[in-house]
């Protein structure tokens, strides 16, 4: 079985990686650009492709200057400072009169799209899209999930989304990590099942006094942790999922979740889990622990793995952190890890205060990112300036990027608009160029073995609630999520046991769990009917 699994993994991996590296089939830009226009627009940018932090103005940022030159549109950039709180900044901007012409952001722009359209914050793009944004139109219709994510229940398209070329690889950027040097020293194999995990944790604890650790904000996120191995769909943050019959359910009301919690409690009681776990509020705290050698099996992100490895190199004590596949159940059940549809939660819209005459120009400008040429520009910059093809015909960054004194990640951000969130399609290749091999390897291990089970259960992005539903849902959800995260903490530390389960489920019911599921079920069905 094991052999078969690893073979399957290998096949899946090869299939996935080859398909991931082929450039997507995009609409040709032809000679449409630069546009022949003298229109000037204002573009408000929330989280996402803001000018890199080192630049004081957009005029210094190569990406932002180049975009104007390539599309021929004069853009007056406005962006939210890097340290600002997104939802506050967005709401403040919404009170402006008139609104900026183009608005890009996350928060609730997508989930509340219908209401924003009604209020005139953004316009309905349906009448214009096919004519003025053919490339985006083609992309949207290359996958039903794409089109559905950016239209309302009554079928109106409202904006330009952010997509990941591979459809999910980098959506699973968190996962388990292990110290390979300790595994080798103890003569252990990389743990696969939960029982293997218990074994490795026990050995590491006896030999090195080490425990399992994680930054709590990552560990608590939706569907993460090792919950999948138990057939559970969530960790500490309230998470809704679709069961086999297409019904919306809450992970933390299922017995599988209790089993997961009981296993964590068992490890906790045996001292195998970092006793500060819930108080590890940041990556920094975990990083310090890892550097101090107090953990050999942990849970964190691709980015953190790079940091940990850099720390270890500097310390020179031979710590070798590598990625580890998500654990499976003892019967081989694969983890339903958090992954996704490869659709971002941000959107770029045209505001209701925009001059009617500007709309076609803006649409064509935004459409650029979804053309073959624009795709390359949004990911790598201008060919010959920041990137070029290597001998194999694949894109690589030029020394101006790779040797930038600000470091590779910051340098890529200067030339690319899709490093983590933008208004276009993120190339998987960009992620390969951006991350070090160990992190890429880790992400491969997190994603490919579980790919088949990683996204079908997720509520697709773009489901929208009506105004009344949204108010009621928020109210129920906020109470329930507090109860859930507290119960999670209590179950892990043993303050609550399996005996308290029924009482907890009763509390969930009295808080309106059934109503919350009903609301979301209705929204999901409306989504399906789009």
């Amino acid at each position, binding site marked *: 079985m094991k052999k078969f699994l690893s073979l399957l993994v290998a096949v899946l991996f090869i299939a996935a990686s080859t398909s991931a590296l082929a450039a997507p089939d995009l609409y040709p830009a032809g000679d449409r650009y630069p546009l022949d226009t003298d229109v000037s627009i204002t573009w408000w940018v929330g989280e996402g492709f803001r000018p890199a932090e080192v630049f004081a103005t957009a005029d210094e940022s190569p990406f932002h200057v180049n975009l104007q030159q390539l599309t021929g549109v004069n853009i007056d950039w406005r962006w939210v400072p890097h340290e600002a709180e997104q939802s506050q900044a967005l709401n403040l901007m919404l009170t402006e009169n008139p609104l900026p012409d183009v608005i890009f952001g996350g928060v609730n722009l997508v989930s*509340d799209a219908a209401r924003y359209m009604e209020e005139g914050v953004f316009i309905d793009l349906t009448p214009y899209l096919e004519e003025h944004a053919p490339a985006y139109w083609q992309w949207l219709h290359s996958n039903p999930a794409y089109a559905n994510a950016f239209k309302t229940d009554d079928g109106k398209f409202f904006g330009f989304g952010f997509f990941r070329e591979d459809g999910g690889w980098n959506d699973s950027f968190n996962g388990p990590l292990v110290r390979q040097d300790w595994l080798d020293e103890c003569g252990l194999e990389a743990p696969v099942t939960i029982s293997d995990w218990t074994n490795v944790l026990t050995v590491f604890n006896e030999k090195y006094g080490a425990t399992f650790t994680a930054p709590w904000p990552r560990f608590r996120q939706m569907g993460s942790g090792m919950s999948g191995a138990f057939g559970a769909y969530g960790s500490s943050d309230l998470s809704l999922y679709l069961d086999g019959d297409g019904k919306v359910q809450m992970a933390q009301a299922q017995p599988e979740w209790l089993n997961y919690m009981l296993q964590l409690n068992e490890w906790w009681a045996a001292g195998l889990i970092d006793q500060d776990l819930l*108080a590890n509020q940041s990556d920094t705290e975990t990083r310090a622990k890892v550097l101090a050698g107090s953990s050999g099996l942990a849970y964190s992100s691709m980015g953190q793995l790079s940091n940990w490895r850099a720390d270890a190199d500097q310390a020179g004590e031979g710590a070798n952190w590598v990625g580890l596949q998500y654990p499976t159940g003892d019967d081989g059940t694969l983890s339903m890890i958090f992954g996704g549809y490869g659709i971002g939660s941000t959107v770029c819209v045209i505001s209701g205060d925009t001059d009617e005459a500007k709309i076609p120009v803006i649409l064509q400008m935004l459409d650029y990112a979804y053309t073959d040429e624009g795709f390359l520009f949004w990911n790598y910059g201008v060919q010959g300036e920041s990137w070029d093809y290597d001998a194999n015909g694949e894109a690589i960054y030029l020394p101006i990027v790779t040797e930038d004194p600000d470091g590779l990640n910051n340098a890529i951000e200067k030339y690319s608009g899709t490093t983590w969130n933008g208004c276009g399609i993120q190339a998987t290749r960009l992620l390969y160029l951006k991350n070090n091999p160990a992190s890429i390897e880790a992400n491969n291990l997190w994603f490919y073995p579980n790919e088949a089970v990683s996204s079908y259960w997720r509520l697709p992005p773009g489901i929208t609630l009506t105004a009344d539903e949204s108010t009621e849902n*928020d109210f129920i959800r906020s*109470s329930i999520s507090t109860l859930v995260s507290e119960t999670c903490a*209590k179950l892990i*530390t043993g303050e609550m046991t399996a005996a308290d389960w029924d009482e907890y489920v009763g509390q969930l019911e009295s808080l309106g769990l059934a109503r919350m599921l009903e609301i979301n079920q209705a929204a999901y069905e409306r989504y399906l009917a789009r």
Partner: protein
Amino acid sequence: MTTSPPRAKFGSPYNPYKRKSIGQIIARDYKQNKYKYLMVLPVLVFIAVFAYTPMTGLVIAFKEFRPRLGIAGSKWVGLTHFENFFNDIFFVRILRNTFSISLLNILFGFPAPILLALLLNEVRNNKFKRSVQTITYMPYFISLIVACALIRVYSQNNGLFSQIAVAFGGTRQNLLMNKNAFYPIYVISEIWQQIGWNSIIYLAALSSIDQEQYEAARIDGANRFKQILYVTLPGLLPTIMILFILRMGSVLNVGFEKIILLYSEATYEVSDVISTYLYRRGIVAENPSFSYATAIGLFNSVVNLTFLLVFNWLAKKATKSSLF
């Protein structure tokens, strides 16, 4: 026969028989003190613009505020937000926690700087006195973020506090994940940060007590303890009362920054207060409800005002010193 009305001893003619309207009084006063009025004007404008105008925004507590529609354009919803808040299952808990933390803070945190000031006042060695003063008010200048980071590190499973506990035969634990330790950590660290700074005002009040009173007390045979009891404390009382009334007026204002920096799911049961709840619900939530947050804020202010008025009234009855 005409009798001239009695005149005030100093200043302008004053007619007690004829009541003047407030406008007339101000007009007359203005003529005499033109420039002083001009000097006050900027302050009045400041208060009107930055304190009273924003208050009109409170009306969104009764509306479903949408940023695009603005305060005037948003829909009226009456008392819905208040009903929701009072029906919230966490209402009792967050109210209880808010009062607990605030009252514990007052109970231990309020007398601490008074004690420190009294003790410092008795110290005769000036060099020592000054160094103690400086050392105690230094923590006040540490940023809250840094102070909380220190607390978090010391409270870890293998942190300073655990090691001290182990040395005395206790067990290791992460104190911030222990519900019972949350209040002591909060209150003690609060005292540590504030004691020196808050004692400054008392030290200033102490220096204004007439030295002759001490002399008289000594002649009457009072020892130092009796001097504190019968001269120093009564001299300090008005200051203490005013600060106490002001403190009671913010009984529901528990600083949420510190709690957010220190709490976790493991301690929500004792640490989740109105302001942290409001922050999670109204500010950082994906669909922030400004109206709901405003309603809670308004409730907060009403309770605070009530406390202020009640304690002001009590203080007036008991000690004759009050705010107004």
